[in-house]
């Protein structure tokens, strides 16, 4: 059991206040915390009554949510001495949760999220180009290298998020950094990956390298423009997936774990009337 609890984790167990079905909201909150690594693989969740209290839901709602998470393979319950609910990192289930979340949002929500992220990260990149020291430049290069080394979707989500956080820190702005951390937590819930994950990652990697090169050249205008373009492309890709998923919020556990970028696009092609 890790001793340290970061600020991101405090939010995980904060009361829920969104209008979605209560047990669904619990599933989403815990699911994204697992996806972000805020709750580690194998970590034990607090006792049911404590968890229900801190999330502000009834124990029966929490049980419903835990049983949903158990069906998805994200939580494992062990009985007896030393028993309890333990977290399991299970990629397909996390992807399914992500897609359900994307479907709940309107494309305008995604557009706005992308625009706001471009504003924050674009400004951060411009300021980083003016202010980054040699040591901070090295950290940026290392951050992009970690993204290059990532081989799983979870690792890509995490390393890309950390790249943006490093840029904001190099900008010498506490406010931009905090905003970026918040945005990354929100975005990581939503990022979808095409079946051609390697191709997408390679393209993204090239864009990040170009930004870091512009920062190194102290070309703030270029760093900003490239960052905005990169985020713009990701936003469009996300909206495309969102639209292709269709309006049905039917959340079949087995089915949507398999929905990939290409099958989602395929559905779109089959239904030109949409």
């Amino acid at each position, binding site marked *: 059991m*890790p*001793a*340290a*609890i*970061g*600020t*991101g*984790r405090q939010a995980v167990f904060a009361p829920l206040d969104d209008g979605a079905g209560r047990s669904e909201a619990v599933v989403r909150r815990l699911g994204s915390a697992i996806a*972000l*690594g*805020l709750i*580690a*693989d194998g970590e034990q969740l607090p006792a049911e009554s404590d968890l229900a209290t801190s999330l502000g839901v009834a124990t029966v709602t929490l049980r419903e949510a835990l049983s949903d998470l158990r069906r998805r393979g994200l939580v494992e319950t062990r009985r007896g001495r030393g028993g309890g609910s333990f977290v399991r990192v299970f990629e397909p289930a996390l992807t399914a949760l992500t897609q359900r979340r994307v479907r709940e949002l309107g494309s305008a929500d995604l557009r706005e999220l992308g625009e706001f992220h471009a504003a924050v990260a674009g400004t951060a990149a*411009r300021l980083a180009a*003016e*202010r*980054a*020291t*040699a*040591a*901070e430049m090295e*950290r940026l290069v*290392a951050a992009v290298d970690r993204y290059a080394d990532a081989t799983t979707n*979870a690792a890509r*989500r*995490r390393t890309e*998020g*950390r790249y943006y*956080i*490093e840029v*904001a*820190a190099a*900008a*010498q*702005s*506490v406010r931009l*950094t*905090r905003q970026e*951390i918040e945005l*990354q*937590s929100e975005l*990581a819930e939503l990022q979808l990956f095409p079946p051609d994950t390697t191709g997408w990652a390679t393209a993204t990697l090239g864009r990040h390298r170009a930004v870091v090169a512009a920062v190194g050249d102290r070309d*703030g*205008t270029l760093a900003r423009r490239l960052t905005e373009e990169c985020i713009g492309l990701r936003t469009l890709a996300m909206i495309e997936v969102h639209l292709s998923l269709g309006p049905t919020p039917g959340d079949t556990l087995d089915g949507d774990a398999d929905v990939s970028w290409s099958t989602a696009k395929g559905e779109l092609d089959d239904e030109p009337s949409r």
Partner: protein
Amino acid sequence: MTSRAADPTRYAATAESLVERVFGAVGLLREQVLDCRSNALSRREQLQAKHFAELRPGLSALLHAHRDVVVGMGMVIAPGILRGERHRVEWWQLLPGRDQPSALRVDLNPESLGFYDCDSAEWFSVPRRTGRRHIVGPYVDALGTDRYLLTFTAPVVADGTFLGVVGADVPVARFERCLLPAWADRAGGMGNVGAGKVAPDVLIINSQGRVVVSNSARALSGELLTDESAVAGTVRLDLPDVPWQLLLSERLFHGVGRNQP
């Protein structure tokens, strides 16, 4: 301009005494850590997390004594010193309006988006490598305190073993607030504002050229001072045993680090 105001050593002396006050507190904390260790060893106990609990009263006293400049202090224990722990962050902050320090909680899981990477942090790696004290910053302590900081650290070594670093976090704004009035006293006036300029431009930069503190809006904390930014006639003075340099110019610095259209 009087020659008294133009003497960089007076400005440097003020900065040095503030720096030495912070490192003094860090040094006391190091003594306490070493005492903790000796106590544990004399009881024939292996060093454990619980032994560091003994530090807390002393740490609290140090934080109270220096709360005008320091916000947090503590120790980051190196991997392998405590059984089963990579790093341990035993770091306490005295938040405004509070009497009791609160523990800084960071995420030490490398698989997390919020991972606080001690190994690659300059405040840890430099004292470990050089065996000497160090000041990092100004920098944004992302995913840690989320503050804009100067972090003063020193290595803790016992019987040839590196145990970790002890240190103090100084918010850039507090450092400035402590230093600038003293600088103004030296110069006989406050700041460099418009036509009422009574003091030369004085600033401290770190080894990377980043402005640590400045009495002029032409060079702000966090900006980079490029070679072209300092006008001819700038006096430079290295501050002893810290990676800082004091710059003084009777004339104006050009605006630094900002994009020229």
